[in-house]
């Protein structure tokens, strides 16, 4: 079955204010897309809504994933279908160790159809430890991370790396990376970029939200989209990022007759 993510004429508002106004986008398994757009254009709104954040109201449209409309599904059901969001601002959960959390999450996601308490079908501790350690090593993450409380007191860079570790452990079919590069120093961008590119393959489709082409040097997208005024106004290839880098968003605004808000 096709694991594509298909967004059709999606309208989203936040507190009665329309943010996304008729967005169409398809991300297929194995494809890499970049989504760019000025601050406040609605990139995170889109990402969070795709994952099922309760704060955002879906006014109309469809989001088909795995052949079904997922808009009515709970976030955990979407995760079990193979959707993943690396957050722009990951939330801290004090007192919950990375390892405990990940074991429950991995167990829940792998037991796709189980809906009750994942505790009954936890993946065996040894197996889990081995896998976690291997993936942490692969991503250059220190062992001590496993015992730390989830995102609690993590530096900006550590949080982003923890998101990539979760991506690696949960093995989704479609991953949305919301500014995983922001707040990272140049070396960290390289580490994250290389880590993600290691994970990329025919099984994984990626939607990368970013402001800077630097991350895209490591993860070359086949498709680049520009979000302005709640819609994707331009889609193209690598050349779009170059144009943005050189000229900013103004020429595109002019072309589409969009006045700055």
């Amino acid at each position, binding site marked *: 079955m096709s694991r594509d993510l298909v967004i059709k004429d999606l309208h989203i508002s936040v507190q009665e204010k329309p943010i996304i106004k008729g967005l169409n986008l398809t991300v297929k398994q194995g494809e890499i897309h970049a989504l760019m757009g000025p601050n406040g254009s609605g990139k995170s709104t889109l990402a969070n809504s795709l994952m099922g954040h309760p704060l955002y109201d879906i006014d109309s449209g469809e989001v088909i994933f795995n052949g079904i409309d997922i808009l009515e599904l709970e976030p955990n059901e979407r995760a079990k279908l193979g959707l993943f969001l690396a957050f722009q601002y990951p939330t801290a959960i004090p007192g919950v160790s990375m390892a405990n*959390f990940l074991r429950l*999450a991995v167990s*829940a*996601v792998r037991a796709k159809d189980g809906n009750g308490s994942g*505790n009954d079908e936890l993946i065996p501790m040894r197996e889990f430890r081995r896998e976690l350690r291997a993936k942490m090593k692969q991503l250059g993450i220190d062992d001590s991370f496993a015992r730390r*409380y989830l995102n609690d007191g993590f530096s900006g860079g550590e949080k982003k790396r923890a998101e990539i570790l979760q991506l690696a452990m*949960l093995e989704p079919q479609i991953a949305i990376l919301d500014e995983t590069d922001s707040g990272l120093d140049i070396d960290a961008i390289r580490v994250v970029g290389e880590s993600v590119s290691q994970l990329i393959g025919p099984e994984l489709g990626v939607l990368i939200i970013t402001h800077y082409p630097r991350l895209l040097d490591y993860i070359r997208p086949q498709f680049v989209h520009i979000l302005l005024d709640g819609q994707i106004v331009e889609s193209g290839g690598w050349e779009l990022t170059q144009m943005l880098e050189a000229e900013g968003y103004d020429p595109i605004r002019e072309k589409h007759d969009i006045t700055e808000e």
Partner: protein
Amino acid sequence: MANSETNTMKELGMSQEYQYGFHDDVKPTFKSRKGLDEEVINQMCDIKGEPDWMRQYRLDAYKIFKQKPMTRWGGDLTQLDFDDIYYYVKASDRSERSWDDVPDDIKNTFDRLGIPEAERKFLAGVGAQYDSEVVYHNIVEELEKIGVIFLDTDTAVKEYPDLVKKYFGTIIPSADNQFAALNSAAWSGGSFVYVPPGVKVEYPLQAYFRINSENMGQFERTLIIADEGSQVHYVEGCTAPTFSSQSLHSAVVEIVCMKGSRVRYTTIQNWANNVYNLVTKRAFAYEDAQMEWVDGNLGSKLTMKYPSVYMMEPGARGDILSIAFASKGQHQDAGAKVYHCAPHTTSQITSKSISKDGGRSSYRGWVDVAKGAKGCKSHVVCDALILDKDSRSDTYPVIEIGENDTNIEHEARVSKIGEEQLFYLMSRGLSEEEASTMIVNGFIEPLVKELPMEYAVEMNRLIQLQMEGSVG
């Protein structure tokens, strides 16, 4: 012993009854009539064969109890009827209950908690606990070799009268409060622990092992004496709901921490939700001694419990870590009290409460620094987590400072389970219930990591149980 007691009862012409009418129970047992008065106390003393000083102690305490007005602060005690309570039920009654008579929901809870068979039966008050008795006797033998006394308090009164008499009621006098007076008049069971100078007990002493005695009574009386430079960790309670037909539990725990000693007292209790749990716990810590209370309260209708440490001499330290989980129809009025009676003493209070399904939790704290007690430090942290809008949390901190040269900090935080936290965890595949359970477990982690391993595991499972069906 059972025989001679039966005879005593006959001689006294007292009624015997077959407890709870269990047909498979043929052993005669004794239960006092409802209510407390001098006659009931005298009966109790006769059956126990107590020395005169203890009889007098009880009778004096009873007089004080009669004079005390009903406690009006803390929780709502208006439904509590002192005349409708059995004050003395001989423990062997309980041990004659059969497993078949344990209600199904209690059994189910045990199943889900994964409590070992032997412990289960004990928790439900069932059956002869041969295995555990053996365990207890082995432990007692080991302890005797290093001079440690670990007995139920009734036995200690008989076997170590001088030691008991010297300290009993010195930390918490009968007149301290209404419930201390009641306990002093009606007490039965509880633990007596004495650790000789310089002896460090390597493993926690668990009340659970001491089960062949009158354990888990309504009016337990515990006395722990840690002699100079000694160390001991005492653990009481269990995480399974305590099965009880009695609705008032009022324990007194007294601890003496002599110079340079270190005592930790850990409690995890989960009472059935008809129970009033009104407990007085206090420790005196002398020079450089350290007292730690770790106190977890779940269940009950109303819990009022404020473990306290009196720092009597320089260098003493008191740490109190408490957690309360108030669910539907429950009020947890818990907290801590520290008294800096000497200079250069230090205290730390960490209180965590969770309120859910209309439950109410209150923190009641008292920090007292005596005049002239210079260079004292006290740090109080109160965190409340409220899971829904019907639930409630309050804090009632009191700080009395008679000395300027002190350093006192008080932090209080009330939080709700954040939508962002829930969303984050759910986006990783956790159900809403799993996510909120995880957040709650994280919230109490600072306490849980202080618990012995097996208690920590049970505590987390228990929270999971409490959270089940709470969302959706």
